[in-house]
């Protein structure tokens, strides 16, 4: 009998008063904390008589170390960093300035280079970074500024009072797999905050609670996601220049799936490569980790990687629905920033700069509340206006219909993208709609048994141990680690659906879409199907794909005991 993680009842929790709690120490959360600190410093220099304190501003980060759960390509558009820390280029860990970019369309064995790089994918002026090291550096700035970062602590529940967010509950530590207290049990804290800023990244678990409770997705397009599966490779010298950027479309995906690959040359002959598979594909047997393996087998890529060595692996979802999917970003006692809100430009495949900018704007809003000592909805709601008046909207508005244009597949998507390009983003309709990705999944019975055109990307990769890897080997290279003796943090609300319905209808796609081998159907004597869901929760890399792609929407990802998770050192 599986026991799922939930905050323990009937325990006395330590209470802590806070002014501002930022949940998530990624680029958005750290930029928010740093901007807030700057504003307070400026204010205190001018008004020593009415000095504001930073003592009660906290950042919660579930990873053991800042940046350990951060995963991206990554290319950084420096626009927001130049506003946050003018001259940041001199000290930030930037691996290379982009020197060259190319876009290819791949067929099974061939490739066509686009004669010109489409303007949204021109990356001169951007930097190749390791988002892990970049965030670590930003985090050190925050700590130097005197703001407390609690690493190893996750926000697991929002505390509500009627229509207001009162604070955050952190994770219970020392709970065994049956949900019982262990000898090292420590209850989670109740952090009562004047404002909670959610910066949890893609598909944040608290953001999900908030959106569901206040129906924030009403009158919005459903958010659509992709999952990026990444490997970091060490190649023989001279293969790819530092700052060289390659994008590919097409193979191994077919016209029915959305997605593409990136290859970024970094310093020291390191190369970041990965494949984003849109989480709106139809065939439940498609396996995004397999997609990356098949991609590497393409002659163009195989030649590139020949003689190299895979050194790191990771996976993370990303929200690319765009402007029409962004929920209200402020309310009574809360704000949402970064990927949690969906600030990502899917046409440019970039979100870090928007995450940082949204964090800065939230900081300015919080600062106004602090100086006025007025944390009411009236003040916090100005965050919404700040976003509308900023270059975030300027950048996202023209591409508001981009991703939805692909709702009917690649070819019509390219057509709509073209029409939008010449009509200021409008396209054929003012507001393109779309479906939530998981709704597009089809029953096995309606699909060719052998996978048809997608036969090469369904089911698990075998791996040759050099160029390609089976999933479990890849997972090893994510360095993910969890306390084993704890309740499962992948909360399945009804396992009967897995064992009795899904097994026939979709063939348990969780086994395929999870890039970390968390989900497994094992033989069972006591279920009619002879199979039973089993969770290898400690393999989880915190990508949130299961929460997003499960066709029945019965999986809720909640944070495991703080400190657990991948270790994306150098990713």
């Amino acid at each position, binding site marked *: 009998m599986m026991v799922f993680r939930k905050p323990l009842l009937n325990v006395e929790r330590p209470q802590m008063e806070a002014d501002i709690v930022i949940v998530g120490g990624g680029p958005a959360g750290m930029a928010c904390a740093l901007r807030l600190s700057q504003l307070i410093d400026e204010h205190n220099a001018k008004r020593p008589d009415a000095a504001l304190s930073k003592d009660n501003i906290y950042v919660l980060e579930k990873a053991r170390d800042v940046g350990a759960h951060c995963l991206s390509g990554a290319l950084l558009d420096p626009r927001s960093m130049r506003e946050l820390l003018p001259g940041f280029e001199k000290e930030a860990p930037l691996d290379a300035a982009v020197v060259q970019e190319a876009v290819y369309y791949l067929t099974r064995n061939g490739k066509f280079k686009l004669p010109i790089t489409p303007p949204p994918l021109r990356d001169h002026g951007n930097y190749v970074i390791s988002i892990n090291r970049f965030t670590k550096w930003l985090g050190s700035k925050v700590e130097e500024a005197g703001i407390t970062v609690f690493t190893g602590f996750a926000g697991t529940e929002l505390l509500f009072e009627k229509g207001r967010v009162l604070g955050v509950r952190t994770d219970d530590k020392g709970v065994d797999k049956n949900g019982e207290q262990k*000898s090292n049990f420590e209850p989670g804290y109740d952090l009562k905050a004047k404002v909670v800023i959610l910066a949890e990244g893609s598909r944040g678990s608290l953001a999900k609670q908030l959106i569901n409770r206040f129906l924030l997705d009403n009158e919005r397009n459903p958010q659509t996601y992709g999952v990026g599966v990444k490997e970091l490779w060490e190649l023989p010298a001279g293969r790819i220049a530092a700052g060289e950027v390659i994008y590919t479309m097409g193979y191994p995906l077919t016209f029915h799936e959305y997605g593409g690959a990136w290859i970024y040359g970094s310093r020291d002959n390191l190369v970041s490569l990965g494949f984003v598979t849109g989480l709106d594909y139809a065939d439940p047997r498609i396996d995004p980790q397999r997609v990356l393996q098949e991609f590497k087998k393409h002659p163009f890529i195989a030649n590139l990687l020949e003689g190299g060595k895979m050194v790191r692996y990771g996976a993370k979802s990303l929200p690319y629905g765009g402007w029409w999917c962004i929920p209200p970003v402020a309310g009574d006692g809360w704000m949402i920033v970064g990927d949690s809100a969906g600030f990502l430009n899917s046409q440019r495949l970039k979100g870090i700069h928007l995450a940082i900018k949204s964090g800065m704007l939230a900081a300015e809003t919080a600062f106004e509340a602090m100086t006025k000592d007025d944390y009411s909805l009236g003040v916090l709601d100005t965050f919404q206006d700040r976003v509308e008046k900023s270059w975030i909207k300027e950048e996202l508005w023209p591409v508001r219909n981009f991703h939805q244009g692909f709702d009917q597949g690649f070819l019509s998507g390219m057509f709509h993208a073209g029409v939008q390009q010449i009509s200021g983003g409008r396209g054929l309709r003012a507001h393109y709609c779309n479906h939530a990705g998981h709704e597009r999944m089809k029953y096995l019975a309606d699909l060719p048994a052998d996978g048809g055109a997608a036969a090469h990307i369904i089911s698990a990769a075998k791996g040759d141990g050099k160029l390609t890897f089976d999933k*479990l*080997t890849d*997972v*090893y*290279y994510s*360095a993910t*680690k*969890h306390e*084993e*003796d704890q309740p499962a943090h992948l909360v399945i609300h009804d396992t009967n659906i897995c064992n009795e319905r899904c097994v026939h209808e979709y063939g348990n796609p969780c086994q395929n879409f999870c890039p970390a081998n968390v989900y497994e159907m094992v033989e069972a004597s006591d279920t009619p199907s002879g199979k039973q869901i089993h969770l*290898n929760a*400690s393999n989880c890399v915190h990508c949130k794909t299961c929460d997003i792609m499960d066709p029945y929407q019965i999986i809720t990802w909640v944070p495991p005991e703080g400190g657990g998770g991948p270790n994306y*050192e150098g990713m």
Partner: protein
Amino acid sequence: MAEMILVVVEQREGKLNRVSWETLKGAQALAEQTGWTLEAAVAGSGVNAIATEVAAKKVAKVYDLESTKLEPYTPDSFSFALKGFIDQKQPKLVLMPHTYQVRDFAPKLATALNRALISDAIGCKYEGGKLLFTRPMFQGKFVADVAFTGDAPYFATFQSGAFRGDQVEEGSAAAAVETVNIEIPDGVVRNKPEAPFKEAKQAVDLTQAEIIVSVGRGIKEQKNIELAQQLASALGGEIAASRPICDSGWLPMDRQVGSSGQTVAPKLYLALGISGAIQHVVGMKGSRSIIAVNKDSEAPIFEIADVAVVGNLFDIVPPLIEEVRKAKGI
């Protein structure tokens, strides 16, 4: 500064921890390369017998650091006693096994002397006048050689399995044992040890086992664990498992070998129905001999096995138990 290597052997409740022999073996090799003297020390209360046991090995001298306040073990008493002793002797290098106890007090001890500690090393060498210690990185995928930059005494600990404890050299004659009475003033020991946790009491220390019979998914059902247990008992070894078995609750978690469990290096590791995912292999690849039984001839475990048996473990294990019992006359 004495040209001396000091090995601090570990005792718990008056018993020498066998992993100390590995550290001593590593120290003997290093003493040969450097030409430095090798001495050893044991701390505790009434542990002269352990000092004498160590003195039979090839060491110049053994110190028995005695104080009633050293029993039971506390990090305060051990670091205090060793700090004073090391301060006075000024060895070049202090070596210890990387045990739970050492992990507990060694950082405190090194910090108290304002010296650096290289922990969890798997080897060491002396090159060009420099001591180099090899440490695993990225969960054992890479190793790095690291050196001290500050001043001696240097502190280092060795991972279990780094050296062959059974190859520790005997001395030509017993070394001298010097008893050093340590004065630990009141107030130094701030820790008050409670009875060991119940979990800890039951816990098996697989790192101490010489023979391990380990089971994986291939064992199929919980009731079949008994079969592996019989083989382990016949061989006089411990039973262990890969993650799925402990995850299913068929064996307790302290019997799990691999990246999320224990790292072991027994003389013999018998892998029954274990496919050999990298997560498991990193926890047992240091074993001296590996025998693997698996139905799948392509199972990755065979890549590191010394003896590969392709077949059904249920056909192979029962006669094996019979043979072992016969050979042992049990």
